[in-house]
């Protein structure tokens, strides 16, 4: 029986040998062909060599997860076959060059179609260039899945004519297409021995394929961000790079700084001057920002920080994922001050967090942190253009004092940047107006920003600042319920576990297990309704990618609600629906 449009592919090999570019070309082609795509990139902390792979899952309906295993493995070197062979699902196929020295015993006893293809031969003979073996491999894949070659042809043309405009590109594209055609034909002979097929569907033209960091960048630009200062650090660099790539079009000042200390302080300077400003980093860089974070809190500077988590502690595993920084981000910097923490769990939520963060930062005049992670930073997903709607974005700069208001100040009236107020928020004048001269400081200060030693002023200003957390609470997005509120078990997560958790719920329900889920797209201050929603659940299972169940701890501390069970993963790879289902089954077996 043939399975249509429901597959997982792996493109595996050494870094720098093209399996990543072939993989991303394939993922893009799938999206263009109207198939919903989710692609994960698994790589090492090195530039060339080693073992990396792209895992691309496609479906006829939207998916939030790259799935487990693969129906086809495209191996770009021998090691790739050895490393990934166990991932191949029953009835799957592996494609590699006929010259690889791989013992047949490796494939024995496996329900597996082994295709030793003349890839290099096609490349040399038809294309006249060994490098085109990669194209040949993709051709075989097109052939065995009965897919249409035109999507690959298009991307080959784009790639070569894009890189070498003019005749050279045309020529290269043409030869590659010839190689492709031959390989497709070659692959087609295996069709009857391979049960998985692909067929284009309508709608691809309304969709795009992007990762979470690009979505954050898009959201930020749409949300009025005109300034980014940052320092490269995986997996946060691509936010900086995205804004850099668009600096010309949208006029974004991009400052690569000497370190992360300067990165946040430069953004604080820009925000103080009146720009919507951000920085992006990962845990190690966030460490260096902690002192300036407190400065932003005390000076009431609304600045946005992206913390893209990777497996820690310390340098840890630079290209591996984890959700290990939540406690740190919540309590970073000495003393107490308000901060808002957003934890988007999908490309769409990343986009939303990207623009919402700036409204929140300016409304509450305090730092806002977007927490994402390595998985989400790199994983690409097909989304409807309509779901990234710039028309929906509003700019709310909060309590701004206008020039006219300042002009109207009486002769003895003095602007007070940190004026006390019931909601904790003071009207903010952008500096530069003759009547709005003011100072502010990281020292405890009076309403007018002068350093103070007064106990009573101290208490007033502390209360004022901390009040902002309460003022902001109703503004935070509520936890999102998935499935049945009354389910026997409720999975609770934040950030990038959203996709796997939802899919796990679907799988469990399909298996007859009553299950639901609660996802927190924003965690601090804990949104209104948190307690109600959690206490209405029968059996709470926290799902987190860290050692200690940090969010579960935070919830217990704030509400007294203790999750009944915690599913924790800290082996540096993204949790999958399968992991969750297995852990839930274990828990159910043991007896909930």
């Amino acid at each position, binding site marked *: 029986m043939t399975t249509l449009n429901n597959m997982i592919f792996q493109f595996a090999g050494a870094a720098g040998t093209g399996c990543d570019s072939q993989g991303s070309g394939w993922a893009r082609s799938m999206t263009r062909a109207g198939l919903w795509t989710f692609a994960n990139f698994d790589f090492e902390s090195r530039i060339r060599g080693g073992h990396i792979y792209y895992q691309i899952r496609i479906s006829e309906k939207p998916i939030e997860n790259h799935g487990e295993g693969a129906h086809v493995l495209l191996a770009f070197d021998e090691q790739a076959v050895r490393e990934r062979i166990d991932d191949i699902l029953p009835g799957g196929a592996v494609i590699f060059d006929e010259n690889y020295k791989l013992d047949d015993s490796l494939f024995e006893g496996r329900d597996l179609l082994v295709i030793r293809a003349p890839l290099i031969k096609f490349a040399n003979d038809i294309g006249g260039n060994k490098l085109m073996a990669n194209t040949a491999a993709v051709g075989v894949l097109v052939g065995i899945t009965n897919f249409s070659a035109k999507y690959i042809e298009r991307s080959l043309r784009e790639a070569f004519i894009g890189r070498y405009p003019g005749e050279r590109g045309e020529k290269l594209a043409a030869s590659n297409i010839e190689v492709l055609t031959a390989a497709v034909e070659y692959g087609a002979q295996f069709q009857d021995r391979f049960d998985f097929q692909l067929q284009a569907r309508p709608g691809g033209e309304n969709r795009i394929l992007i990762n979470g960091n690009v979505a954050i960048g*898009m959201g930020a630009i749409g949300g009025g961000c*005109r300034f980014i200062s940052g320092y490269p650090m995986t997996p946060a660099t691509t936010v900086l790079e995205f804004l850099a790539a*668009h600096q010309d079009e949208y006029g974004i000042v*991009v400052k690569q700084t000497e370190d992360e200390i300067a990165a946040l302080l430069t953004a604080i300077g820009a925000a103080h001057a009146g720009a919507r400003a951000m920085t992006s980093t990962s845990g190690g860089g966030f460490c260096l920002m902690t002192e300036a974070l407190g400065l932003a809190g005390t000076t009431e500077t609304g600045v946005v920080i992206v913390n893209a988590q990777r497996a820690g502690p310390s340098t840890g595993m630079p290209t591996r994922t984890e959700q290990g920084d939540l406690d740190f981000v919540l309590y970073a910097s000495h003393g107490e001050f308000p901060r808002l923490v957003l934890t988007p769990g999908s490309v769409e939520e990343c986009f939303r967090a990207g623009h919402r963060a700036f409204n929140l930062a300016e409304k509450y005049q305090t730092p806002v942190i977007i927490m994402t992670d390595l998985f989400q930073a790199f994983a690409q997903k097909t989304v409807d253009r309509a779901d990234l709607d710039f028309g929906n974005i509003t700019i709310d700069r909060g309590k701004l004092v206008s020039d006219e208001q300042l002009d109207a100040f009486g002769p003895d009236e003095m602007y007070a940047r940190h004026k006390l107020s019931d909601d904790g928020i003071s009207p903010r004048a952008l500096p530069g107006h003759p009547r709005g*001269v003011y100072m502010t400081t990281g020292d405890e200060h009076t309403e007018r920003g002068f350093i103070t030693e007064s106990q009573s002023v101290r208490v007033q200003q502390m209360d004022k600042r901390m009040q902002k957390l309460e003022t902001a609470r109703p503004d935070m997005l509520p936890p999102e319920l998935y499935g049945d509120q009354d389910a026997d078990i409720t999975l609770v997560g934040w950030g990038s576990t959203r996709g796997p958790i939802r899919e796990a719920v679907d799988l469990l329900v399909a298996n007859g297990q009553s299950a639901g889920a609660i996802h927190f797209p924003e965690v601090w201050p804990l949104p209104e309704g948190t307690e109600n929603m959690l206490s209405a659940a029968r059996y709470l299972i926290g799902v987190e990618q860290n050692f200690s169940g940090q969010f579960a701890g935070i919830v217990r501390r704030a509400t007294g609600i203790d999750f009944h069970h915690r599913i924790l993963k800290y082996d540096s790879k993204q949790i999958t629906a399968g992991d969750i289902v297995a852990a839930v089954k274990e828990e159910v077996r043991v007896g909930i």
Partner: protein
Amino acid sequence: MVSESATVTIKSFNTDERSTWCPGCGDFGIVVGLKRALTELGIGPHQVMFTSGIGCGSKLPHYMWANEFNSLHGRPVPVATGIRLAAPNKFTVISVSGDGDSYGIGVGHLIHTARRNVNMVQVVENNQVYALTKGQYSPTSQPGLVTTTSPEGSIEAALNGLGTAIMAGASFVARGFSGDPRGMADLLARAIEHPGYALVEILQDCVIYNRVNTTKWYRERIYDLQEEDHDTSDMRTAIDRSIEWGDRIPTGILFQNTDRPTYEEQVPAIKAFGGAVDRDLAGEFSPDDFAKMLDDYA
């Protein structure tokens, strides 16, 4: 912002805030120098933005009426960079902090900001000691100085801040003396006018914790480069002068290079769109303009 020179006087910068400095502190003279320089150039309190660090000297902008962002120990310079790059047409930006702040914990920012030639002034109040923390040796303390953390005398060579800055690419490097507010005001005015990064070190007496490098000590040693035949455009001579310390200590402009473009002038977004703070966030681009970003991923 157009300067309103007609209306700016020394008094424009007066404030009721009372200083917490010790009587006799060299920092008092630096306030006078700054007020004079700004007055001379007709830059009003709302047209200047001070950034400062932490230390006795870093309190300075608190004691004159002007915009100030008082940041962290060692960090006024990156804040200044942020302000300059976000509002390149709005403020004269002046960073003010002590020798420990600027040359010690903050020296990395100094070096990279000098290298970039961000259009700002960095004033270093050099009393050769960590004063506010009660007198430990600083990166400019002279070897042998006995302090609470060097009870046997400091065993570190003093940093040549000016020479280091020149090698790092600073395009304006000068030294003043707090006992000479008039000369200092002139230096500061030149620094403010200089298109690019300007470092102005002010030698300053700490009457409590530095009993060696006192006002008298300085007066006996300093001389004005501009009264000698000093070529400020020659980096090698400037380096030579920066090394000079002991019987004779040079003040005045050591080095100036007006050929380098400022960092701001070269930033693509500023060239095309002007200052980030002057933009219309809500109306500048349409949803369709934005949606073009998506095309790359189709």
